[in-house]
């Protein structure tokens, strides 16, 4: 179900720029094909080269025309077989290929240029600005709000916030995600921002290293994702205290610190973002690693068509027969879109867990937080810990290491 939804959202998002572009572009004037009896003309070719959308029904479905009469379009030295070339163009030829590679059986797949333009255009620019905008917003926020400081004096008594295995899982997830993010960004932006300055050889080497790191570190990320899910899912189920947290904007704005259990509502948003978006990135990443064994989109589109969702949104039926290349193009686009969103969320998470809040890093660093910090940010959780320890105070609480 999840992969169906993410695949459908990918198509909607992918179609947005094209739809906007189509609305902005003026409708091309109809092409007069009388000189070729309805066959392709030089104007058709030039229009495609200009990037205009051409209705190719006249070619796809065959016709009685011939390109021969058109100046400059006739074959030289041999007779042309338009039916053969049409079948090659639209993959309807009963051809036998020697390779066992499924990609090799697709003779012509013209989605590559559209995918490349989307990747280098809207995807790279919107994604890049999203990350830079997030960092800029945090810098402004820090300048205006300042660091969230402790309101109370430190007690010198600490409580265990996260056990060793919890911290291990967190850092396994964090380190793998940072590596995946950096190598993904190198892959996305290397050609534009590294090759012109450091040279193509350096960029090629970085891409090769990035590919190895990205493809293999992904397994550590997925393992850690499963681990943190089972460790913290129980604590991240929404409850009534989250409403109070939202009502007080989490204590970030102003001086109030709303009560919270082990995780406050903001942390729950982070948790579920990591699980859902990280899970989606994992699924699309697996589809990219094993495109022939794990195609993602064709089956999803079939299901969505069956539910009638494209029609409800005013779209035509989604394609249910996709070449392996198309599967990979869609999977890569979705993989990158979701990764950009998750990177922006994680940048904010890193901020609040380090420079944004005094004492926050201790929770994942040493695992021990001062009682004053716990009372300020997770008062309900502190009460639970105290109750388990059998006292109202923290008589049994640990003292900080010297």
């Amino acid at each position, binding site marked *: 179900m999840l992969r169906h939804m993410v695949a459908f959202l990918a198509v909607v998002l992918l179609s947005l720029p094209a739809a906007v572009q189509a609305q902005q572009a003026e409708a091309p004037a109809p092409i007069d094909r009388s000189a070729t009896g309805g066959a392709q003309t030089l104007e058709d070719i030039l229009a495609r080269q200009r990037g205009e959308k051409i209705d190719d029904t006249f070619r796809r479905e065959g016709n009685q025309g011939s390109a021969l009469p058109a100046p400059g379009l006739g074959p030289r030295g041999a007779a042309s077989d338009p039916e053969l070339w049409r079948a090659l163009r639209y993959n309807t030829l009963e051809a036998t290929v*020697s*390779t*066992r*590679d499924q*990609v*090799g059986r697709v003779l012509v797949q013209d989605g590559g240029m559209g995918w490349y333009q989307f990747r280098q255009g809207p995807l790279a620019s919107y994604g890049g600005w999203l990350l830079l905008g997030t960092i800029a917003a945090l810098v402004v926020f820090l300048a205006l709000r300042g660091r969230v400081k402790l309101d109370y004096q430190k007690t010198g008594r600490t409580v265990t916030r996260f056990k*060793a*295995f919890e*911290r*291990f*899982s*967190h*850092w*396994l*997830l*964090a*380190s*793998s995600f940072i*590596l995946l993010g950096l190598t993904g960004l190198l892959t996305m932006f290397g050609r534009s921002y590294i090759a012109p300055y450091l040279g193509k050889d350096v960029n090629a080497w970085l891409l090769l290293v990035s*590919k*190895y*790191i990205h*493809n*293999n*570190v*992904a*397994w*550590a990320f997925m*393992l*850690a994702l499963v681990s943190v899910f089972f460790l913290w899912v129980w604590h991240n189920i929404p409850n009534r205290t989250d409403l109070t947290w939202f009502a007080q904007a989490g204590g970030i704005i102003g001086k109030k610190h709303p009560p919270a259990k082990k995780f406050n509502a903001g942390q729950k948003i982070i948790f579920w973002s990591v699980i859902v978006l990280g899970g989606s990135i994992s699924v699309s990443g697996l589809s990219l*690693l*094993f*495109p*022939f064994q794990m195609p993602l989109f064709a089956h999803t589109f079939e299901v969505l068509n069956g539910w009638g969702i494209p029609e409800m949104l005013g779209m035509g039926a989604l394609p249910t027969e996709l070449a392996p290349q198309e599967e990979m193009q869609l999977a890569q686009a979705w993989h990158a879109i979701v990764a950009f969103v998750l990177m922006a969320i994680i940048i904010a998470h890193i901020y609040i867990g380090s420079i944004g809040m005094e004492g926050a890093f201790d929770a*994942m*660093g*040493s*695992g021990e937080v001062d009682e004053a910090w716990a009372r300020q940010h997770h008062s309900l959780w502190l009460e639970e810990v105290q109750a388990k320890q059998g006292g109202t105070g923290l008589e049994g609480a640990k003292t900080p290491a010297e």
Partner: protein
Amino acid sequence: MKPMIAGVLAAAVISVGAWYALGQLGLSSQNMFSGSNVRIE
């Protein structure tokens, strides 16, 4: 800080292990993405 260092090291170990295991199983990217007739040996 030990779990933090262990987590980072584990990411490296798991990655190398995955690379080795996938290669042994014939699931390396070279095997997945190229046919014998186009592979440069």
